[in-house]
């Protein structure tokens, strides 16, 4: 399975997907005009990963901003992880900056939809 590393830009987040380590990182800003295109390789990578996942899968989501077009794609990513959770123990860490209630709320919104427990982690600004 292929490792996927995308460096962050002013409009797109850093993505590190390391299937051999069972690790996924999403960090930074996700505000592209066309988010479907951007998230496509990750969605496909997660699909492939689900055929032979590691026993444990750790996911760190540390987004600073995301637009509504990305929010659908993030939900798609989380739904893939929900599917993987049957074959691997998935741990989702949702990071939000101190006082960023909107980002905490966004995590809670996802948690209400996705059947995988989230760990909410507050970080200093």
């Amino acid at each position, binding site marked *: 399975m292929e490792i996927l590393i995308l460096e962050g830009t*002013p409009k797109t987040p850093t993505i590190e997907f390391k299937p051999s380590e069972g690790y996924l990182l999403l960090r930074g800003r996700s*505000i592209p*005009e066309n988010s479907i295109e951007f998230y496509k390789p990750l969605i496909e990578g997660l699909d492939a990963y689900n055929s032979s996942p590691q026993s444990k899968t750790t996911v760190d989501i540390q987004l600073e901003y995301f637009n*509504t*077009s990305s929010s659908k794609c993030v*939900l798609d990513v989380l739904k893939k992880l929900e599917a993987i959770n049957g074959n691997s123990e998935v741990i989702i860490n949702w990071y939000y900056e101190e006082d*960023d209630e909107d980002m905490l709320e966004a995590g809670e919104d996802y948690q209400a939809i996705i059947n995988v427990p989230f760990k909410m982690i507050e970080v200093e600004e």
Partner: protein
Amino acid sequence: MENIHDFYTKMEEGNIMLSFKGEVTSDLLTSILQIMESKMDTLEEPPVVKKKVYNILVECLQNLYHHLENDDFATPINEKSALFMIKKQNDEYSIMTGNYMVKENVMPMKKRLDTINAMDSMQLKTYYKEVLNNGEMSSKGGGGLGMIDIARKSGKKLEYRFDDVDDKLTFFSLNVKVAQNRNKEEKEEKVK
């Protein structure tokens, strides 16, 4: 010669921090966001305010961008042109947009805005989750979440108006105000 001083005075009196009229491109959005970010840094805005304004800016600008991309044929005179302004007065930010729209789109837009404006913050949260989970995503990735998110983050009612231009076109104006210290007020409310 045109009176440039008039333009200047109008912008000064209106407390306009930034204004743009013209074609909205992806690169332009990147630049505007960078300019506004550094302006808010200079003003030493609290991170909470900065994030809210930035988020609403992104959604408003991308609404314009996608609108112009879809309906460019609808603006024969002002091709792909829109207006965008940011105002700051008495610690309150206003993000204002204006664009042409074909008349058929006016009623659906008005209905959407009125639906959103009739909701309180809890109802908006529920509505957002509903659309996020069930709503069909448009090819551009929009999917109707933008306005709901703008209303949620703004914490105020969305102000809007439609001005008829001719038998085909209407000019749509939107004013989004960013409530200051909303979280603080809510927290205090909870304490009571």
